């Protein structure tokens, strides 16, 4: 069969339209690159949080809860509100983990700010150290995970976590915690909390990626991790973290 130049353009055009439609659809549906494209050794995940950008809306808490089916009353991530008055103990609240945000406060003359919290995915994690069977572990790409088919439910890791990030799942009777949306980030997506933060206060970062904005962020800002004296090598960095935060 002989194909004329006109037919060739027609077929080429159709292929182009179909391919771009497919690509658009893939983008919309959130389909990911082939899993074999993800190499664990090429990543070292963490998060940066800009305290000044957090408005305490709780979108991250809701998104996390929906994405990961977090049982009611427990939290993989939550937001705390600090109200610091000079010379006094800070007043802190986190009603239902800030799932519905915060009631407006009207007190004048006090410093007030929000602090999103999640597992710090520590490189020297005390929870990993104490697990009697190694059910909780640091993945090669730097995420602290729990093997729920192996966890005994002894809760030693909950006691060992300095940040209160773990809980016993009330139905599965195993320990549960933030997985940094491992099922998403290994497909090239960001975490549910970062994706739904309206101000970009939280950003998933990859310390092994030389082009990741984290390097510039760490270079240009005063950053701190929570409870640095615990020496856990936490990988969640906070910009402008106030000394009152625990």
């Amino acid at each position, binding site marked *: 069969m002989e194909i004329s130049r006109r037919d060739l353009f027609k077929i080429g055009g159709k292929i182009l339209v179909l391919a771009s439609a497919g690509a658009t659809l893939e983008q919309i549906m959130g389909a990911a690159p082939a899993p074999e494209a993800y190499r664990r050794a090429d990543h070292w995940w963490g998060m940066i949080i800009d305290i000044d950008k957090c408005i305490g809306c709780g979108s991250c808490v809701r998104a996390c809860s929906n994405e990961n089916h977090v049982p009611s009353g427990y939290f993989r991530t939550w937001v705390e509100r600090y109200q610091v008055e000079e010379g006094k*103990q800070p007043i802190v609240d986190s009603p239902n983990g800030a799932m519905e945000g915060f009631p407006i406060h009207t007190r004048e003359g006090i410093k007030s700010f929000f602090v999103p919290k999640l597992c710090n995915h520590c490189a020297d994690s005390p929870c990993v150290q104490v697990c009697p069977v*190694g059910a909780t572990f640091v993945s090669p790409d730097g995420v602290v995970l729990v093997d729920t088919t192996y966890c005994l439910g002894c809760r030693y890791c909950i006691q060992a976590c300095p940040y209160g990030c773990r809980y016993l799942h009330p139905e599965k009777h195993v320990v549960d915690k933030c997985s940094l949306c491992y099922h998403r980030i290994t497909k090239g997506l960001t975490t549910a909390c970062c994706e739904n933060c309206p101000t970009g206060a939280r950003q998933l970062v990859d310390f092994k990626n030389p082009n990741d904005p984290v390097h510039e962020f760490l270079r240009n800002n005063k950053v701190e991790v929570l409870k640095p004296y615990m020496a856990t090598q936490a990988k969640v960095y906070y910009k402008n973290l106030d000394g009152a935060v625990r």
Partner: protein
Amino acid sequence: MIPGVDGFMYPNEVELQWSLLIVLYPYITGLVAGAFILASLERVFKVDAVRPTYRLALLTALGFMLVAPLPLQLHLGHPERSVEMYLTPHRSSAMAMFGFVYLWYLMVVLLVEIWLEYRADIVHLAQTTTGLRRLVYKMLTLGSENVSPEARRIDDKVGYIVTLIGIPSAFLLHGYVGFIFGSIKANPWWSSPLMPIVFIFSAMVSGIAGVLILYMALMKVEKMTIDMNCLDTIAKYLFYTFVIDFSLEMLDLLHRTYEADESFRSLDFMVHTRLWFSHVIVQIVLCTMVPLAILAATQVWRFSEAHRKTLYALSAVLALIGIFAMRWNVVIGGQLFSKSFLGYTSYKMEFAAREGLLPAIGLMILPFLIVLALVKLLPPWVKGEAREV
């Protein structure tokens, strides 16, 4: 406001993770270690006065040892997976070593020592009893019926070596339990290098007190005369270990108060409020200072035999309650405050639940029943022996 919570707790901290059953675990292992150390006084340190309680102390240690893992097992979210601790232990975990320390102590130390000590009796009973009892004793001989003086000499020698190994093992067993708590840097109420040492000495106090009470009770049940020399000696050792235990605990308290680090205000407030009754009133005043004063008085003044018995029994009961309160204050107290140091939660004990009061009571009665059964199976004394002493 969340019911039972004052101030701010991290949201996942509101619920206590380690309950009454985890209070029982160090309490029971402490009784094991303490009873064994009392037994070793006679065997290794040649304190002949405590000979009447030697066998009873071993049986007490065994009775409680058999129950020791049960509260842990009941507490696990997935008890059926606990075998993984033996199959794939995580080497960096203090808790992973529990199974091995436990098995070492139970199989290598306690069972071997008890068998060697009772071997001649078992052989004798296997030859003199009938029916099912005979079969049981026959099995317990493990096929060895040689009780010649030479064989007994070897038994004694091996038993001595096992006890020698047993003393550091008993220290290891309970020091290790202390280490489980003392090594948690996230929790300032627990994190202390003194914790294993405090646990060992408090274990000795509870074990000695436990055997003292059991000895007195069994003598009454069996209608035998209490050996007062033995009782005086046990009380003396109870006093000594209690002094060391109390000094260590006060040293810890003094150190915390004087150092007054970041956590101090929070912990101090907790001790003055939620732990006031169980820590200050029960543990320190009623169940440590009072029995210490009573025991000190018995060392200084000479009381009549009847009075001494009452005073010793009272001190021992108070000591047992006090050490239980100490375990309670460590385990429960360590979870009542927030790691943010900004708030406090409460412990609501359930009753007929898996980790409730009812199974806990059952778990505390069970070792006594086992000890009674063991005493029937392997009588610690020949009737009338105590009278002869």
